[in-house]
């Protein structure tokens, strides 16, 4: 809650520093003076700053961000349109990150010092240090142009008769047994999700590798072997499980990074998500939308970290919810 409040305050004050006259920004440069006046009144832009802050916080608490000054539609409904698309992309990316990140980190840690270890480290460091814009363009060129395997635009909804249930196209298609739409959705999801995952995942194998190295020669693992446990069981129950504790923290952090990555990736792939929406709001100085997007991103990161806290006790029974460390 305090994190949310802090973020809200920061966003509020920054947005008011950026522009000398927000009313003209929102109404448009050639807007009728009456329209500018109406906008100023609507958003209390002429009121004292503390009064503006009050209305601002009230709006956040009630999830009422008001109408989008550009479209006239409720911002909340626009968020509800864009957010599921980004969730679809981010969840798919997380799946790739978890499988690939944990897998490669595990192999790299267990094959410490070998060529396999070196190759894996080169791989994840290269993808991780590649800028999102460059990586996404390269992915389009290679996998949609030179080797045409995947579509490079959209999330598959164009031309399909589609009734949104959750707003996540792939999921909704499956729920409605619309197999052509599902196929199209998966087709369109593979390249942007994999691109986003590969450009964001480097920290996961890195930490996983480091955790494996810390754990595999630890005393309790030696003791487990000494007790006669099979190597597979030692690795699974004593090495991997303990290594996952730190890695889980990083995966939760990566979830937040993925949102920042979506701003670029959604542009390149014309993916109708909240990253795109935020970028448009930044460009057009659409402060009400910007505030809403920042709020949603913050909530997303907080939820991810909360889930990480929930998973910890499952990995390490010594940790219980509500206790420190």
């Amino acid at each position, binding site marked *: 809650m305090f994190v949310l409040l802090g973020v809200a305050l920061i966003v509020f004050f920054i947005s008011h520093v950026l522009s000398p006259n927000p009313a*003209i920004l929102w109404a448009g440069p050639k807007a009728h003076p009456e329209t500018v006046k109406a906008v100023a009144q609507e958003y209390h832009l002429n009121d004292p700053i503390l009064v503006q802050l009050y209305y601002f916080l009230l709006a956040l608490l009630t999830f009422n961000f008001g109408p989008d000054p550009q479209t006239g*539609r409720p911002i909340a409904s626009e968020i509800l349109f864009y957010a599921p698309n980004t969730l679809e992309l981010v969840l798919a990316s997380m799946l790739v990150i978890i499988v690939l990140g944990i897998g490669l980190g595990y192999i790299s840690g267990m094959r410490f010092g070998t060529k396999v270890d070196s190759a894996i480290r080169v791989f994840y460091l290269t993808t991780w240090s590649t800028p999102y814009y460059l990586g996404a363009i390269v992915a389009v060129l290679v996998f949609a142009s030179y080797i045409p395997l995947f579509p*490079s635009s959209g999330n598959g909804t164009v031309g399909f008769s589609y009734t949104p249930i959750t707003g996540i196209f792939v999921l909704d298609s499956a729920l409605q047994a619309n197999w052509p739409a599902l196929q199209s959705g998966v087709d369109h999801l593979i390249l942007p999700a994999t691109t986003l995952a590969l450009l964001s995942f480097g920290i996961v194998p890195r930490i996983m590798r480091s955790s494996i190295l810390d754990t595999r020669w630890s005393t309790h693992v030696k003791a487990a072997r000494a007790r006669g446990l099979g190597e597979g069981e030692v690795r699974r129950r004593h090495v991997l499980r303990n290594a996952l504790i730190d890695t889980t923290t990083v995966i939760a952090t990566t979830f937040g990074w993925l949102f920042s990555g979506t701003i670029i990736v959604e542009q390149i792939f014309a993916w109708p998500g909240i990253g795109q929406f935020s970028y448009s709001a930044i460009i057009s100085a659409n402060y009400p939308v910007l505030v809403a997007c920042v709020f949603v991103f913050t909530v997303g990161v907080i939820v991810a970290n909360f889930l990480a806290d929930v998973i910890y006790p499952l990995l390490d029974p010594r940790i219980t919810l509500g206790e420190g460390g």
Partner: protein
Amino acid sequence: MRSSKRRAVGRTVVVAIIVIVLIVAAGAAYFAASNLPNSRTPTAGATPVKTSLVLEEEDQPDTLDPAVTYVTPGWEVVDQVYQGLVTYNGSSTTSFVGVLAKAWTVSSDRMNYTFLLRQGVTFSNGDSFNAYVMWYSVYRTIAMAQAPYWILNQNLAAGNGVTLNVTAAMLNSINYSSPSPSNLTLMLNPHQSVQVLNSSAIRFNLGYGTNGMAPYSDFLATLETPMAMAVDPAFVSSHGGVTDGLPNGAMTTTAMGTGFYELQSWIPGQSVSLVKNVNYWGAKLSKSELNGAISPAILNNIIIYFKPAAASIADLRSGTAQMIFVPVTYYNVTNRLPGVTTRVLSPAYGSAEAVTYVYMDPLAFEPFNNTIVREAIAYGINYRVITANVFAGHAVQWVGPVPPGFQYYNESTTGLSPYQYNATKAAELLAQAGYVSHLPSGATLNAGGTPFPRVNFLYDSDSPTDTQAAQIIATNLGAIGITVSLSALPYKTYSSVIFSSSTNTTSYPMGIGFYSEDYTATSDYVYYFTSDNYIGTSNYADANVIAWTRTASTSFDSATSISSYRNITRAMYYNYTDIWLYVAEMMTVNQNGITGMTPNPAGSAAAYFLYFNTVNYTS
């Protein structure tokens, strides 16, 4: 004997290999089972389906409501779905053809425009179009009073100031298929801007708008804009109706017009999809009645994706996109793509996109009150370097305020050449004005003079070309003794500054200004530069120039217009009111075999043509 550790590692490797093989096999099976044409949008490498076209561009529509949209991509979509009374004739920007109007007459004093409407016109849902609907559509724009409504408000208004004022409540209450006697009394009233004559004829009476009781030479151009396009009252009513002073949220993402395309979907942030209107009224016309603006669509489907330029170029290369709109700075990239045609358009197209100049507001910065200082700045900028380095030669220098390629540009600039770079002369003029200046050789002139005060120089940080140009200008001016502090603002904030009324407290008395057409008319540009009193127009207000502007915009005599524009151009040129910089060229980029685009500077489709209905494949 192998140790247990080696056995464990070996098992791990085997398991990993099996998993990888399974994943690859599953992927291969998936793609083998895919039925590409049914399950994908036009894909990389697939042969383009010849009944559809994919266009990619960076900017997105703001809204699909014709009374509200104020950006090029919005007009691009609206132009395919909605129609107005008239439109430009082919590539001309001065002659018009009828769309929903079959014919029209203009009164001798040019204050009244009477349109005879086509019969049998319907919206794509089957609702009829008539004069009552046109009356509603225009007043709807005025009542909503959103950002672009001023285009119509120059000559038209909701009321006559005495006995009549059309409100949203009135608009929402009328039955436009069979109006009641009281409704008819209202619509037939001759003392209003839009007057119904009968169900097939409508008259526009100028004089109620901000231009006052005067004709307007570019009135038809204002009727070509989305603001004056026909909107279905029943459709609007079922989507929230009209509200005074407010947009209609539902109309933002839906569309119902009389045009040759219908909106299939708008996925904000992704795409707009248009499908051929199978109920299009124009399909019933004979060939002799058709013109390029009302012919039925050839292609069944137009999909517009919104992506950055680099991604669009990649898609064009792969064949996923057949047409893209990217800035001319990508000319050297697209010109080398195999199977792609890149063509640079005439300056009129660049002018319609934006004309660029340096403004100097004397109200906010005292030295700019001195004409010699402004003249020094005009000589102090290296225009050739800007054109060459920023646009790789694809920009033209110009003399304003009439934009290059527009009507009367050549006549108004006869005998004048664009400002030339001469650092020596710039330094001498600066010294003459009383300031310390520096020659290219490094020598100082007027060493005992006043150092020129530092001045903030504003530019749009979202524009890579403006950013580079600003840096070049700062270097050039710094060399002669004028130190500018580059101040970048994002577009929305930047435009809120330059389109604000001038005050003596502005923080940005100097900078790069721009103007884009709202409708394709010389008067639109000239009025902006001479009469708007913005920071971004150097707070220019000369009584003679304003009088000439009004004469030109109200005259239908070429000689009078030419004389007025020539006087305006010379007055501003020798006053160094604004430093005319450049007009970036525009280019067309499409795969070979695409044809049917009729270029027009008023065009929003791929930014250079108006309508997709005539676009098709040659083979």
